[in-house]
């Protein structure tokens, strides 16, 4: 959509758009270009400088079982976190959408966790699940169950999945509730008169009508699980034990920042960028018309 009435002149608008464009150029495009360039170079063996190696970093990565393992782990992590956070939020939203007493209070009490930092949710979970001081973790060990997410990879993965999903529920809840409220009451009433009961009404009427919200949230949750959980995982397990909770973003950070392997870390960044571009493209293919029209 375009405006019919506009102001004249071109110097003023360019000045207005300049701050945004300058920051974008320096902190988005330049680093992105540099990532692409570095991904095709490697450090000279004597530290003398960069050597162009074409796509070698990429073929090395894709042949590296550790990288593939991290990729698979990230996919499993994203799917589990999204399913948990969305499922729980949808259930709560359905109940909060009912005409019951105190629904305003319930909403407020389910919305506030939005404000909690991902890194902070890990601290909260530490006090529940830590094998030495945790509210649940310690009793578990006392009862003879070996619970220690610092040592057991599966338990570590379970812990970071729970902490990450927990933080995202309130965001999903807000959107599901708004989606439910935008369904015309008449549609639900008509289904009720046709005799569709509780679960069946939800499955055949409500849930299909929520599809746009669900799809939008799926994209947001996958992006959240893939990127924003860096703080949660880094604070709880540092990607360990071993590499059992090392997602792709943690690996970029560790290889680049800690191990200083610039070429490989940049190649990983480029692969992640391609991933984000793919996700964004899918999202706008299905629901982005609003933005660009």
């Amino acid at each position: 959509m375009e405006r019919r009435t506009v102001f004249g002149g071109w110097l003023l608008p360019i000045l207005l758009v300049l701050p945004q464009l300058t920051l974008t150029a320096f902190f988005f495009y330049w680093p992105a270009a540099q990532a692409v360039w570095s991904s095709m170079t490697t450090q000279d063996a004597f530290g003398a400088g960069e050597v162009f190696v074409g796509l070698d970093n990429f073929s090395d990565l894709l042949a590296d079982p550790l990288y593939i393992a991290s990729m698979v782990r990230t996919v499993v992590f994203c799917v589990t976190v999204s399913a948990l956070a969305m499922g729980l939020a949808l259930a709560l939203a359905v109940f909060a959408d009912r005409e019951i007493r105190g629904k305003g209070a319930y909403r407020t009490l389910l919305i506030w966790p939005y404000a909690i930092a991902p890194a902070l949710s890990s601290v909260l979970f530490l006090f529940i699940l830590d094998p030495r001081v945790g509210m649940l973790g310690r009793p578990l060990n006392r009862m003879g169950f070996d619970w220690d997410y610092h040592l057991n990879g599966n338990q570590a993965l379970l812990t970071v999945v729970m902490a990450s999903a927990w933080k995202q529920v309130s965001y999903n809840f807000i959107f599901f509730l708004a989606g439910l409220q935008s369904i015309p009451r008449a549609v639900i009433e008509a289904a009720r008169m046709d005799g569709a009961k509780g679960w069946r009404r939800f499955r055949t009427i409500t849930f299909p009508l929520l599809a746009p919200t669900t799809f939008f949230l799926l994209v947001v949750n996958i992006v959240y699980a893939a990127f924003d959980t860096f703080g949660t995982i880094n604070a709880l397990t540092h990607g360990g034990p071993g590499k059992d909770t090392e997602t792709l973003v943690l690996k970029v950070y560790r290889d680049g920042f800690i191990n200083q392997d610039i070429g490989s870390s940049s190649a990983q960044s480029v692969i992640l960028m391609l991933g984000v571009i793919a996700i964004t493209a899918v999202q706008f293919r299905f629901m982005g018309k609003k933005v660009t029209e």
Partner: protein
Amino acid sequence: MPRQDRDWFAHAMLALGVVLFALPVWLVLAGSTQDSDAIARGDLSLVPDLTNFSAYPKVLTQGTMGAPPVWHMLLVSLGMALCIAGGKIAISILSAYAVVFFRFPFRKIAFWSIFVTLMLPVEVRIMPTYSVMATFGLINSFTGLWVPLIASATATLLFRQVFVAIPDELVEAARMDGAGPLRFLKDIAIPVSGANIAALFVILFVYGWNQYLWPLLVATDPSLDTIVIGLVKMIGVETQTDWSAVMATAVMALLPPVAVVLLMQRWFVAGLTEGEK
């Protein structure tokens, strides 16, 4: 099920959900009033000791376990969150206004080049962004904590939607009265987007306050530690963790963003669901 039973079931489920979210926070609140040695022995209790809030003044004024005093970290976090929220809103309003209300060379390119940054989150360009920051001498500076984060495609898109919806008649009338573009921006465009600005402020304040990866990358100087960074540092200490100090710090780290969300809940919920969809 009869209606009464269904309501009862809904209440039970919602209450369970509320507890699921409140419990971890309550636990930390209760723990902040208890003895650190008792917590370390595994005697963390859900009942707070209302006579002992000594952990709060202690962590507020003194640095513990490698982190600076909490008052300082709160100040850094607050400064960072306000600058990010304010900065993003300001430059996004200006760029959206330029793109909607003017026709200038490369307008489409300008819009699309802002739009594409949606696909380049910090997490995918960790190393190169660090080297750009180093080139500008922004490592370990307060400016480095917020300036690179304020470019925003989402905020620009949001304001673009709001500005496109301003009726042409209003623009005509303002021009007839002799109002120039800057006057129109100040007197009409910004006031009509008031609710959107409020909603965006909440979202961006929380976003800024909760940053973790970015400050971890660009600031190693403890005097630039945000409260989130400091807290994670504290739990990273292997031995002799002062648990009640950690918990008191956690409480203070989550209070400000939670307060902002609760106080501005109405705008926030409306803005979030209409802005991002």
